[in-house]
């Protein structure tokens, strides 16, 4: 709330800077705007930029650094015996202090040291914020006065403002690169820490997955095994089932819509597929767990098959339904890109429509379709909510679609949701799985995009 007020004050100040710069420029030439180098507004923007940008950068820097700085200061002021605690316990103590300071925890049953630390924490936070606010406002005012003195009729205000705008545009376009770098670095660092504890070969080629590390030595079923093969197999099984549904249905509906369907049919069918694409995955997950899985189980009972209520089949089929619109819209694009002349040539030789499609259009569109299917596979592999809600947790190494299997994404979620200590192999394993997931989907995408682009060039 305070930050919001501060931001508002700074905004008002910036606007004031705009009016001031504009007024000053006009005042210098006695209201004759033609004597200025730039339009009067640009002088206003010039002053406003000087006033606003440094101040807002200051606030942003403080807000990102505040928690780290405060934690460091608080830790160093704690008594020595608390400081010598292990990292996790220290984290708990710091958490207590933060809760106390924000008033969301009761004061009872807390040692006076902690209460004192909490009070220090609260005062430091207030002080820090107040200092930051004063400095930010001072910077804003300083920028304002400095820029105001620079305003002269000859100043090339427009060029300077436009230069700044360009820098801002370039900065925002590098965010994409920063995000990728952030993803790669965070996954890589945590995975390396994981591989210090568990050898990479054990992880990639191990056949047993049971990530519960033992709290007591004699505990049953808590071996802490991190062999990820069962997860990979489960992911592939479910993705395969999904593609078995999505590929034929998506492809055939795309063919039908682009080659056969009357425009009125298309006007209904296309939005219908878009609806399928717009439904959140959590809804599909609920649908899979509530309706599809019990339906398969009961049907299996009818034929004497035992189908688990968390079967790979249910999750896979629902995931396939989710991917149908993806496959169909990609294939639709590709099929429409096949030149009309090829169709007409085929018709001219007396081929029927389906013969044309099967022997001329599909072979011509094949690279694009394969690329689209690869993109769909990467979608299926990375899909999370459906499998979290409808697939199992136990890592079975099986190819039987009627049994429960688990996937990479399910394990990432189960390892990271809930209370966690950040240094255990268990939580770090999630990052290693994430790294594998990222690499595999990235490879699939790169291959798919190359194939699709090559194909596009062919007909352009």
């Amino acid at each position, binding site marked *: 709330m305070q930050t919001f007020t501060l931001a508002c004050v700074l905004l008002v100040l910036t606007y004031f800077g705009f009016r001031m710069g504009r007024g000053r420029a006009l005042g210098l030439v006695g209201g004759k705007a033609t004597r200025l180098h730039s339009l009067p507004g640009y002088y206003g923007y010039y002053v406003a930029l000087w006033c606003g940008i440094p101040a807002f950068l200051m606030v942003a820097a403080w807000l990102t650094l505040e928690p780290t700085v405060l934690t460091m200061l608080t830790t160093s002021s704690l008594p020595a015996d608390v400081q010598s605690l292990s990292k996790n316990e220290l984290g708990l103590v710091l958490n207590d202090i933060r809760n106390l300071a924000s008033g969301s925890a009761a004061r009872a049953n807390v040692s006076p040291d902690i209460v004192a630390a909490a009070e220090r924490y609260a005062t430091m936070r207030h002080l820090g914020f107040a200092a930051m606010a004063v400095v930010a406002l001072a910077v804003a005012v300083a920028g304002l006065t400095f820029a105001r003195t620079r305003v002269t009729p000859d100043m090339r205000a427009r060029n300077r403002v436009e230069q700044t705008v360009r820098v801002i545009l370039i900065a925002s376009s590098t965010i994409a690169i920063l995000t990728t770098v952030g993803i790669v670095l965070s996954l890589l660092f945590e995975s390396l820490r994981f591989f210090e504890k568990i050898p990479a070969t054990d992880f990639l080629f191990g056949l047993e997955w049971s990530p519960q590390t033992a709290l007591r030595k004699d505990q049953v079923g808590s071996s802490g095994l991190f062999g990820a093969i069962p997860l990979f197999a489960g992911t592939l099984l479910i993705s395969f089932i999904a593609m078995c549904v999505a590929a034929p249905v998506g492809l055939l*509906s795309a063919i039908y819509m682009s080659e056969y369907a009357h425009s009125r049919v298309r006007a209904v069918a296309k939005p219908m597929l878009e609806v399928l694409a717009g439904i959140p995955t959590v809804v599909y997950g609920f649908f899979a767990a509530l309706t599809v899985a019990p339906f398969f189980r009961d049907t299996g009972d009818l034929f004497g098959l035992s189908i688990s209520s968390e079967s790979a089949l249910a999750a896979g089929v629902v995931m396939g339904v989710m991917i149908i619109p993806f496959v169909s819209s990609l294939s639709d694009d590709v099929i429409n890109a096949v030149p009309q002349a090829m169709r007409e040539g085929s018709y001219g030789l007396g081929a029927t429509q*389906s013969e044309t499609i099967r022997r001329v259009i599909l072979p011509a569109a094949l690279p694009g379709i394969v690329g689209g299917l690869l993109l769909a596979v990467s979608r299926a592999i990375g899909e999370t909510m459906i499998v979290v809600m409808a697939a199992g947790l136990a890592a079975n190494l099986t190819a039987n679609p009627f049994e429960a299997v688990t996937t990479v994404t399910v394990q990432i979620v189960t390892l990271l949701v809930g209370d966690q200590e950040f240094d255990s192999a268990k939580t770090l394993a999630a990052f290693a799985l994430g790294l594998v997931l*990222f690499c595999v989907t990235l490879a699939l995408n790169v291959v798919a995009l190359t194939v699709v682009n090559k194909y596009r060039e062919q007909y352009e």
Partner: protein
Amino acid sequence: MSEVVQVGTPSAAGRPVAVRDTKALVAKSLKRRYAAERRFRLYGVAAIAFAGFCVAVLFVTIFSNGYTAFWQTNIRLDVTLYPQDIDPQGDRSPKALSTANYQKLIKQAFGDLFPDVQNRREKRKLFDMISPGATFVIRDMVLKDPGLIGKRVQISVPLSDDIDQFAKGFIKAETPESERRVKDAQIDWFQRLKDRDLVVTEFNSTFFTAGDSREPELAGILGAIMGSVFTMIVTLAISFPLAVGASIYLEEFAPKNKWTQLIEVNINNLAAVPSIVFGLLGLAVFLNFFNLPRSAPLVGGMVLALMTLPTIIIAARAALKAVPPSIREAALGMGASPVQVVFHHVLPLSMPGILTGTIIGMAQALGETAPLLMIGMVAFIVDIPGSPVDPATVMPVQIYLWSDSPERAFVERTSAAIMVLLCFLIVMNALAVVLRKKFERRW
């Protein structure tokens, strides 16, 4: 078709018989070929029908499971607000009023309806029929108007979720008693309440005004809606300016070199990175490195902003590309600088397209769950968040949480929450369609 080609080659001494043969062969194969044609067409129809069937089943399931959640079975209860129970000191202090034992009053009033139930175990079963939320109804009433103390008031309080489910017919009396959560005695009492006309079915306003709760009849979706609103505000505030800036640079100013190519490849790949990986990024960078608060819409919004950025950039670039070069050339010819050309002419003309893309990206972000699980927005939060740094959850995560709960009443609430979420999404997508239809210009 291969036979046709073979027959076309002259077989025997160039007699005209070969032509007739060809005709005959084609005529003979025509039936088969037309059948294949019809079959192929049928496959296409079947594929579309299957997709339509899936949509229909999905919506019917959600609706038929969910619409009952908008009604709640209540009981009309006459409660006497004895002053000695509420405020023994008689000073009407707010503290005394808010901590008084209202449960006793409810139990008294409800017990009076069944004077024949004396046994302690039976009594517990009886009081289980009323939701624990009943006490809050009275408390709020008294706090609002302390003058009511000592009077007899009629209130309508929710029955417990199991009785509610029984009243709605989801728990059937035919199932053996050991297998259902409502006991025979409770069914009997409920029937007696009904006979006395004390049971009423009212619109479930709690569902739209309360936060989460362990008791299905007290659980509401407002907390999640507010969480979603704050998250979306943060997402929009970050992703829209960044995406517009990036696409303007790439489309209008960027030189064609290795660096811009790298940016483009990056954007295309980010669009296909699984959403859960963005969650891992948020956990490692925002939470563990920058120590930002857990479970806060601020962090959720930042993660979702990074996720929707590629979507909006791709849409915005398409919209900018659609503006014809003649506009740019005309503006440049009139003496505008390149930046003026973009901000005064190209950007306003492409705004409808950019906004359409933004709304679609926002709709995607609104339905996203997986990355938010990673950054702790999956906690059980009763309070309705008041700012982007309060702990909160969002609608899809609320759906996920409720779908995990064993109570039957949560199944209908999950479906109802899905209906609310879908309503939001439909409105957003309809807005995008309207925007596209109304303002987008074809040059």
